């Protein structure tokens, strides 16, 4: 399940306020004040469009850690109503495309900062 983040998310009681507020990080390795007793099941992801790819109205999402890149691709494609023949790529650091079966939780641990993971997505036309 992927939930929107513009309201205080039901998944994460205690997390409140605008993005980037300190001390309200979800799980991850950036929480101030030591290790969380239990890592939260979801991580904050900020999706940014590349090129002429449509921009998502909601950019910030709480995504469960075990969701794979492929799962995220499917979700974005549905959300943007892309055609099946259009391919969507996701990049981390704008320099690397994680494998489709890579879990977002792992990506968050490695590349997240300020309590979120920024991912860029880009669509490309299939050969037609």
């Amino acid at each position, binding site marked *: 399940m992927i939930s929107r983040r513009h309201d205080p998310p039901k998944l994460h009681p205690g997390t409140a306020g605008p993005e980037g507020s300190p001390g309200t990080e979800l799980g991850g390795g950036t929480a101030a004040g030591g290790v969380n007793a239990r890592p939260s099941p979801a991580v904050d992801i900020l999706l940014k469009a590349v*090129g*002429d790819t449509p921009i998502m109205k909601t950019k910030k999402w709480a995504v469960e850690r075990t969701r794979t890149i492929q799962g995220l691709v499917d979700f974005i494609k549905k959300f943007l109503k892309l055609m099946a023949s259009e391919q969507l790529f996701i990049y981390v650091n*704008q320099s690397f495309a994680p494998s*489709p079966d890579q879990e977002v939780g792992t990506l968050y641990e490695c590349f997240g900062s300020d309590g979120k993971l920024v991912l860029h997505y880009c669509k490309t036309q299939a050969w037609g």
Partner: protein
Amino acid sequence: MSCSVAGEEDFFLEEKRFKQYCEEFIKHSLQIGDGWEWKTSKDLGDGYLSKTHFQVRNRNIAKERNNDNIEQTLFTDVEESLDDSQVAGVCATEEVIRYEYHVLYSSSYQVPVLYFRACFLDGRPLTLDEIWKNVHACYQARLLEGPWDTITQQEHPLLGQPYFVLHPCRTNEFMSPILTSSQKQNRHTNYIILWLSTVGPVVGLNLPLSYAKVAPEQNTNADSVERPLS
């Protein structure tokens, strides 16, 4: 053929840059033991990236779902997805498949090109279908959808043997947007890592996540990728 969107430039990779990125790539591969090498051709000055790896593949279809992890660790390269079949499967014949991946430079398209092939230990080559059957189900959707229906079989320009090739004619099309975006943020992006991580999974080649963190010496000039001529 679609035109470039205004403001989006084509990034052509100069051969010199290609070699620099490959060097960086190899360096990281050595650090993590990923098995890539730089090979040079005796006659020409050309060089290319090369990787050979072996994959053990079970031929049985059904497997117990909750196997202990021994099977998983032995066959870490097996990309066959566990299916829902409840039949306890006895491992039938195992096959060892030898995969080869080469990254060459195409001077006509000014982009890297991926050559690949696979064969059994007795030398029998796999067909493209057989290669794709080993690709994880989630990638298979990409095979149908992606901008690479132009996988052809060609003679390797340096080795003279038949390889499958991911045709380079559309590489620029899917690379330019992310490169443009990356460039704007003054990010040093290794073209080879970016490209190979994108196209690799389609042919069963995955780059470990650590490649994403390859960050060479910071240099002040932002032209890590060649700018267009116009």
